[in-house]
């Protein structure tokens, strides 16, 4: 049997080889298109994920619920409480009747901050010159806590300046602040490239790894491997349809991020596509690698979904800036393709830089692609045990 396949291989012309390959690709297309449900999920899921996560991820703190304990109840304290609520940063959730309620309020998790005024606030301010405000913030969310205490401090200080009627302060240094690339500080500019990177990587890796593992599990992989095609082409033919599916996904993702999320493509569209195609290829290759080491669909899925999801979310810089991580985690992060893709997408889409700025990322992703493909090919057991 094996003797005859080898001899058959020698006789085939490149044209015939190509036709064989296309037949395999066509078979794969049939596989996908006949499972309507899966195809629908694969095409719709990325769009929904991008829209949902793009809006849900927002570090801009607003509408924080506060409680106030105000024993003095005078014009100044009332004015401060009102002033705090003007800019939608704070929503007054509750007025506390006694300081004992503070703990209970925090323990039920109702409010993010409790403001405590000292007694006889106005009078002390007027005569003694000093009055106290305590900002008790719930430190269990550090970002919110530090942001809202800073907001509140600024608002109270601003109110005080109004109160003292100081217009011109001598020897004043004024900073003129310019926010580059994202003047209105839209959180989506930061998170949409990250969500794009995550969606493409996870879905590509899941699709390829599961579909090959499925053939292994059903035993049909054996049939493919005894065909006169070289194993390399058998495996590549499995990736081709998913490559096309991913291109469709890429375009819908870009359309949604530009027209729904309002994230601009400031730089070259051409290089964004080149970069993304390379990234899709790397992600598919990662899927191939996973499928070469597992034998069941369940293992393929658990590794590609669960095993990849957490490192991609946490280590790629998609949510948390890499420079905040301990060095060994930064190094692990460097091995995740999503990290380089996300960085490059930010440079092209948002900063509007040219291809010169992403050469580094392109080179790293290319090396990853070659490495992943060659490792997974070596891992594939061509012979059946």
């Amino acid at each position, binding site marked *: 049997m094996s003797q005859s396949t080898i001899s058959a291989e020698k006789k085939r012309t490149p044209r015939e080889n190509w036709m064989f390959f296309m037949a395999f690709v066509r078979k794969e297309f049939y596989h996908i298109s006949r499972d309507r449900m899966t195809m629908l999920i694969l095409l719709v899921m990325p769009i929904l994920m991008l829209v949902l996560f793009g809006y849900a991820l*927002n570090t801009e703190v607003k509408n924080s619920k506060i409680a106030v304990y105000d024993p003095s109840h005078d014009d100044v304290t009332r004015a401060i409480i009102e002033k705090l609520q003007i800019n939608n940063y704070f929503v007054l959730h509750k007025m506390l009747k006694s300081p004992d309620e503070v703990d209970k309020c925090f323990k039920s998790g109702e409010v993010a901050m409790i403001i405590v005024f000292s007694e006889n606030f106005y009078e002390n301010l007027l005569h003694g010159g000093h009055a106290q405000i305590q900002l008790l913030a719930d430190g269990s969310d550090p970002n919110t806590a530090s942001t809202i205490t800073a907001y509140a401090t600024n608002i109270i200080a601003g109110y005080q300046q109004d109160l003292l009627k100081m217009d011109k302060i001598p020897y004043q240094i004024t*900073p003129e602040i310019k926010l580059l690339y994202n003047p209105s500080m839209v959180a989506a500019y930061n998170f949409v490239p990250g969500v794009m990177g995550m969606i493409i990587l996870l879905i590509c890796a*899941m699709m390829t790894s599961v579909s090959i593992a499925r053939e292994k599990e059903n035993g049909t992989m054996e049939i493919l491997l005894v065909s006169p095609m070289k194993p390399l082409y058998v495996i590549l033919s499995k990736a081709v349809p998913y490559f096309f599916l991913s291109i469709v996904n890429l375009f819908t993702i870009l359309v949604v991020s530009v027209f729904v999320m309002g994230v601009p493509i400031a730089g070259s569209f051409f290089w964004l596509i080149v970069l993304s195609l390379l990234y899709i290829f790397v992600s598919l290759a990662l899927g191939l690698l996973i499928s070469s080491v597992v034998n069941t669909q369940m293992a393929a899925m658990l590794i590609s979904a669960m095993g990849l999801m957490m490192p991609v979310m946490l280590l790629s810089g998609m949510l948390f800036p890499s420079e905040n991580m301990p060095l060994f985690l930064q190094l692990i992060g460097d091995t995740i393709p999503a990290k380089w893709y996300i960085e490059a997408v930010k440079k092209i889409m948002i900063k509007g830089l040219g291809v010169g700025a992403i050469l580094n990322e392109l080179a790293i992703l290319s090396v990853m692609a070659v490495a992943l493909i060659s490792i997974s090919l070596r891992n594939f057991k061509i012979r059946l045990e």
Partner: protein
Amino acid sequence: MILKYLIEKEFKQIKRNKFLSRLVFLFPFMMLAVLPQAANFEVKDINLCVMDNNHTTYSQRLVQKIAASDYFHITTISTDYRQALKSIELDKSDIILEIPGTFEQDLIRNQAANVMISANAVNGMKGGLGSSYLAGILAEYNSEIRVELMPITAKITQSGIDITKIFRFNPELKYKYMMVPAIMVMLLTMICGFLPAFNIVSEKENGTIEQMNVTPVNKFILILSKLIPYWVIGFIVLNICFGVAWLFYGMWPKGSLLTIYLFASVHVLSISGLGLVISNYAKTLQQAMFMAFFIIITFIFMSGLYTPVDNMPQWAQYISDISPLKYFIRVMRLVYLKGSSTADLIKPFLTLCGFAVVFNSWAVFSYRKSSN
């Protein structure tokens, strides 16, 4: 009685799958030990590019003051704005501080000077906070100078309202205290959500479900026998998490362990129930996987795990209401950090119970013994 045998069967199936049994023990351990260290939104170590066009004692003192602060590292010194911008493009610096050539002159003679701060705001939070830190240092420097130049008048401008900031429950504002309890919930949800989602459908693919369907066992018992093993797995995972949190992060719940067990048992029940619902509807394992993946990742992102639910637009907050993770993560943080008791948490408890009842009755009803 039949339930006992059915559960025994499920456990044997899980135990014989070497990959699964290793996953249950190793996955939570590895993920929880490593990943929370990466989760940090803190803005620090900001790289600064300085363009001092003035070169006087006043401008140099300002630069020194900034260099001495904890937040900033001066990485680039430049004389040309284009060159400075280049350093931002290449991510070598995050903020440019430009001191104009007439700085000292403006400050002393005209009593008012400007400096320019240009921040990279792709990450809006980092750009915004970074430039406001810088503005804060500038203001401090400003009042120092004012005191030197006019000691008497300066006093008036000092504050009459004393503001004290107190950060309760996490005085050093460490991110790990926020992330560890939440990541525990995430791990629990992934393991107890994915595995049941594959359960029934893989029996469908293997054809073994037919054997179950011809037995007189009723649907309710059957679903129950599939739920209980995941419940047990959930407890194993949870206990591993407690251990890792204590060993690696020195965290132990301030509240009672029993409160967490109580909530966890309801949460696992509802998530596994949802997994079984997916499994009932899916025709192939592949479909079940993609559906489970989509639902679980959506639950995770909408739960307020990474950024607070309050920051989301209103419509997204409504969606977050249907994520059981939202409630359990909140409870977990409350019990771990603040020591809340069950009495403080009646509302989320009832909500989680609601999820458990809905998902599990849905699982029973959607299970079909006869094929149409």
